[in-house]
Structure formats: C-alpha cells, structure tokens
C-alpha cells in the first residue's frame, strides 16, 4: 500500500505535485521482529572461486544436451510378439511387431517460444466430428488431417526439427540401430500390496485372522510422529503407467507396410500406442543421408 498523502497536498498546483513525485523515496518500511545484530555472511559460501548458480533454464538445457536425441521419434502401435531366426546361426530372437500409421509432424516447440526444442508428431486419423474445435483448428492450420494420437519428441536443438507436414515412414529407423520404446503398461486395476509392491503378506496361521494378504504396519507410533509418512507403499491402482524399455534393436523395417520389428518386449497390451525414439544410451545412428532426403 502506498503511503497516504496529507489532504493539503492534493490541493496544490500540478507543478508542485510533479516535484513531489521526482523526490527520492524514504527508507522502505518493513514489519516483523528484527535482529539488532545483522547476520554475518557465511564463511563458506563467499569468495571469487564459487561456481555460477545453475538454476536457470539455459543451464537446464545444457545439462540435458547429452541425453537428448538429435532427431525426432515416431508413434507406433503394438501389434504383438513373435520371433525371428537367424538362418546362419539358428539363433532365435523374440521380437515385438510395431506399425507406423500416417505419422506426420504437426508442429514444433522452440526454445524462444516454449523454452525447449521438441517435435510434435501425430499419427492415425480421427473423425473430425469427434474432435474439439480447437484441436481441429490446430491441425488444419498446419495443413494436416485430424490425428488420433499426438505426442512430442524432445530434440537437442533446432537442427532436429523436421518441417511441419513431413511424414515419418518406417525407414526413419535403420535396421541394427537401437531405440527406446515408451508406452503404458497393462492396467492391473486396484491391487493389494503383495501384488503391487511385492510385500510378503502375513502368516497363514499363528493367530492371524482375515489379514493374510494385507500390509503389516503403516508406520511407527509415538517415536516416529504417530503418522503415516508420505509415499507409504499401500494398496491401490496398479499398472497403466508409462514405462520406457531402453536399447531395443531394430530387426526389420518395411516402409510400405509401416512395420517396425524391434527385439524384445515392449510394455502394454496389443494395440497400445508406443513411442519409439533413438536410444539415448547408445551412439546416435548415422542419419546423414536420411537428413538430406528430408530437407530435399
């Protein structure tokens, strides 16, 4: 609240009023209990050699620079699992079959506008009557058909931003490269602690009645604050949470049918949506020719 002026001042001419405004203000009023002796600066947290604080968005981006992929990923559908044999060695590799369907770049997220670089990618098709007007306008403004799934793929810098409307085919990935696949796990519904957290449950007998599968104690008594600590593992909804499976090798790619075969298992039921992107724990794939074809 600004200090109130006495009533007389208001009646003075405008020139005096302007002069009042230009005058420097007095000391800032502060409230509360104050110490008579001012706090000493810390002996340890001062000096010329201290590092610059890194709590800025620029520093955050710099920290992530090594773990952000150089290029966008793709949205796929899990079709199921099968196996692939190597005809020479006879080695059998269990694999998951994914399919890319009408994957296109919808828009970009940029450092200047949104604080980070990402490619917004859509896949599939959704009937426009089942879509909100705002989302429909977002697609039509970018000259795209309405998409069923829309996801973002973070990239390191603007060189990874594909042009809007660019379609991503299965040959975006190369056979032999590694990808990370993230999808939602199978939902298990409301699950008890034995299933959800692997608790051992309680005894079958020895006087236990009706609580054979429940948890023991939910926390300490008087010494521990007589409360349940936040994050206590309890019964609840299990599954249907995002999971990333890292370092899956691409075994086969067919851009005509959109089929991408990756080694190993991918979380979630058949028909679930899977996001695949270059593996962050493997060397980036050599995509120089692919990048040229994209720009051309």
């Amino acid at each position: 609240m600004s200090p109130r002026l006495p009533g007389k001042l208001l009646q003075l001419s405008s020139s005096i009023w302007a002069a009042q405004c230009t005058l420097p203000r007095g000391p800032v009023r502060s409230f509360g209990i104050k110490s008579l002796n001012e706090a000493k600066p810390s002996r340890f947290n001062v000096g010329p050699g201290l590092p610059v604080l890194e709590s800025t968005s620029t520093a955050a981006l710099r920290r992530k620079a090594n773990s952000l992929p150089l290029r966008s990923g793709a949205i796929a559908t899990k079709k199921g699992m099968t196996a692939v044999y190597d005809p020479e060695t006879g080695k059998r590799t269990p694999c998951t079959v994914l399919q890319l369907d009408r994957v296109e770049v919808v828009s970009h997220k940029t450092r200047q506008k949104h604080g980070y670089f990402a490619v917004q990618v859509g896949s599939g098709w959704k009937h426009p009557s089942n879509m909100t007007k705002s989302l429909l306008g977002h697609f039509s403004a970018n000259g795209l058909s309405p998409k069923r799934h829309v996801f973002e793929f973070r990239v390191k810098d603007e060189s990874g931003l594909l042009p809007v409307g660019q379609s991503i085919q299965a040959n975006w990935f190369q056979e032999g490269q590694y990808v990370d696949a993230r999808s939602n796990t199978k939902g298990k519904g409301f699950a008890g602690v034995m299933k959800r957290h692997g608790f051992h449950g309680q005894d079958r007998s020895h006087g236990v009645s009706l609580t054979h599968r429940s948890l023991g104690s939910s926390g300490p008594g008087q010494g521990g604050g007589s409360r349940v600590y936040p994050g206590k593992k309890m019964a609840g909804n299990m599954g249907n949470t995002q999971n990333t499976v890292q370092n899956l090798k691409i075994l086969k790619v067919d851009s005509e049918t959109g089929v991408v075969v990756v080694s190993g298992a991918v979380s979630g039921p058949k028909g679930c949506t899977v996001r695949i992107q270059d593996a962050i724990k493997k060397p980036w794939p050599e995509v120089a020719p692919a990048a040229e074809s994209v720009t051309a």
Partner: protein
Amino acid sequence: MAALPAMRQLGCLRSFFKTQEAIQPQISRRFISTTYSQRPKRVPFPSNIPEQFLSQIPVRHQPQNAPKPIKVYPPPPSTRAVCKDPIASVTESQLAEIDPKGERKALFDYRRNPRSIKQGDIVRVTFKNGDPFNGVVLSIKMRGIDTSFLMRNELTRVAVEMSVKVFNPNVSSVEIVQRAERKPRRARLYYMRSRKHDRRSVENVVAAYVRQKKAFMGGGRRR
C-alpha cells in the same frame, strides 16, 4: 377349441396391429416439456442494417467477425489398410526364408495333413551340431513361427523330455520312426508322464529303425 393354443402363438402379432392406435393418442397426452418442436433454423444476419445499429452490436457478433469454417484436410494413405496383420506378414517372410517349400510346416500340421507327425508317434530329430534325440511325441504346439513339439524318452533310466522348435534352422531332420498303434484320444498326451502310462525308453525301437535304414541304404550303394 383345439385351434386355440395354436392361435395363442400368434398373439405376439397383436402388438403390430395395435401400434397405430397406441402411439397416436400418446402424442396428445404428452407433457408440454416433452412435446416435439422443430429445431429453430438459423436466421441469416440481415444485410441492410443501418450503420448506427450495426455499431451497437458487440464486435464478436458482427457479421464480418463471424467464425470461419475450419478446413478439414483428407488423411494420407494408410499403411494399416495395406497390411492389416503385420504379425502374419512377418511370419510369412520368415517362413519363406527358413522353409521355402513348406515341408516342415506340412510335417507338423496334424490338423490338415493326414501324413504329418501326430501325438504318440516315435520320432528321431537330428541337429546340425550334437547328438540326435529320439522320443515319443507328447504334444504339438501350433504357434506359427514358434511351432514346437515335445518329445519324451528315457536316457540312463532317467525320464527326459525335450521341446524342439520346428522351424529352428539348427534342426536338420525329423524322421518318423514308428506311428502310434492307434490314434490317441487326447491332443496332449501328458498322461504318459504317470507311471502307469509311461512308454519308458524308445531307444530299442529307434535302434532297430536305424539298423534297418542302414542296411537299406548300404544295399542301395552296393548295387
């Protein structure tokens, strides 16, 4: 009176005749709140409004600021329509490489091929590396590229079971040594694990088969 019960069957048709009478009077009996009324048609904005009235209309309701219809673009061709069952196509491409003539598939397709290996047969499997394995076929699991069969035998008086993937390239051959005496009544002969029904060792049967085969082949060479 004998015809009456038969007439009762047609009683359901009564509702057809009554529909006209039943529904018509109901309309008049409806409450005001539920009476049907035509959806109001959109009245076009009058074109010749004097400027003084037009300026009084809120800016967003003025005709030039009306929302434009959103243009919906058609979708690109779908890969899903091209390949509706990707798992089948992946399996087919595998089989074309591993089993181009479809011999192995036919050898285990016991539901369609009468000459195939069946449950209860004694078979001899040879691998590219290592010893052959003989045994009674307990079950055949048809799972596309993962089709496998389970064999049971007794080696050094210990019962041994081995599951072999049919399309594994390391399997060089599968021979039928002896057919089952009669067709078993089960698809999975797991009862053969019980002591009463156990077939025990099939080594002597296979040894006789191998001897016979060798003689046959040797005779062929001498000529």
